[in-house]
């Protein structure tokens, strides 16, 4: 365990980058994914089509390919994403939002259809029906799958290690390379730091779920 203690500053700086990637990409993916879900249930066929295409494209593409596309292909079309951290944020949130969309959509479909009918019957518009009546009721059933998505995101941030972002895995790899006899321990250290994010996330999910509970 000395290895981990001795290299704590290196681990911590990597951990900080991983945490930043997770929080920023997670926030963007939650917002964008919810917008996509709203598009998928909207009465406008064009919006539904766009959202379906986006979701199918992104969720069926390996995350590494999404990174490759941004870093190597997009510049050839004249789009130059800022290198490093922000490119990783774009790739991670674009990819994760597809999964957020499907989690939110399943929650929306779980709200009894009579709720939306009653909302429309008093004259609420589609947007009002969604934001005032349907989504608040969908939140509860959406929390467990969303936490799954966010935990997957936390671990997916390690893909950024392959694209010049020195996050947790990249830091661990450097420590392992510098201490070849203890390489396994160095990587165990990496795993432990991921738990620092994912275990509280699971706990938070339970707390949130109880907090937004209401009897039906």
């Amino acid at each position, binding site marked *: 365990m000395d290895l981990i203690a001795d290299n704590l500053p290196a681990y911590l700086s990597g951990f900080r980058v991983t945490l930043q990637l997770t929080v920023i990409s997670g926030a963007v993916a939650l917002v964008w994914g919810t917008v996509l879900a709203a598009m998928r249930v909207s009465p406008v066929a064009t919006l539904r089509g766009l959202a379906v295409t986006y979701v199918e494209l992104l969720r069926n593409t390996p995350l590494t390919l999404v990174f490759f596309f941004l870093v190597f292909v997009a510049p050839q079309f004249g789009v130059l994403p800022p290198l490093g951290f922000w490119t990783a944020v774009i790739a991670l949130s674009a990819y994760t939002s597809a999964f957020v969309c499907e989690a939110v959509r399943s929650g929306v479909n779980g709200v009894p259809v009579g709720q939306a009918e*009653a909302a*429309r019957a*008093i*004259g609420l518009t589609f947007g*009002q029906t969604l934001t005032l009546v349907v989504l*608040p*009721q969908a939140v509860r059933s959406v929390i467990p799958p969303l936490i799954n998505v966010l935990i997957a995101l936390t671990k997916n941030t390690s893909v950024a290690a392959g694209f010049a972002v020195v996050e947790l895995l990249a830091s661990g790899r450097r420590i392992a390379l510098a201490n070849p006899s203890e390489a396994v321990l160095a990587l165990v250290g990496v795993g432990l730091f991921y738990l620092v994010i994912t275990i509280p996330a699971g706990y938070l999910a339970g707390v949130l779920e109880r907090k937004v509970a209401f*009897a039906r």
Partner: protein
Amino acid sequence: MTQPLVVLEHVEKHFGALHVLQDVNLTVRRGEVVVVIGPSGSGKSTLCRTINRLETIESGTITVDGVPLPAEGRALARLRADVGMVFQSFNLFAHRTVLQNVTLGLRKVRHLGSREAKERAMALLERVGVASQADKLPAQLSGGQQQRVAIARALAMEPKVMLFDEPTSALDPEMINEVLDVMTSLAAEGMTMVVVTHEMGFARRAADRVVFMDGGAIVEEADPETFFTAPRSDRARDFLSKILTH
């Protein structure tokens, strides 16, 4: 004075192979209470739901206060605000209190301030006899109370016409009357109502006109006295003989 408020002309609709509405023509005049009865699957609920376009129609026209039903969008939302609806399964917003159920439309559709909305809502809850439950969630109320809240929620929008889609069918027998009483007093106050129901007592007492549907078509229309004592069609006679024997 008795100008038509809701007019359906040659309305047609299929659910797959089922011809659920067949050349339906119906005119509801201002202040009139029209009760729609008929066997299950006769299309009476569907008919009721087409009037605020919760069900779309394939052909024919529906006008409310002279305005044809608009396509999906803001104009339709505005029209729906003027057409109150009460559902069989209440459909109160499960995550909001009783009071909030009634104020939501006042705040977000009629754009009232929170104080005024609350006053209006409380007056309506008082009127339907559930004011003491204002701060509870719908699930904490009995079915009869929930349905009375649903009526208050619809009345809050000051609708031109109220649609009732089997409002007592999901209620325990001892709660049916408390809901029918509210509806009867509404009818007496001159509200224009379209009521789909199996409550023949209510039809007899409160209706200006009874519409009998079978197989997606309107078979017979008459004032309640004539309909219940001397129905013209065989199908209406058959239907009445089955439900009025006990």
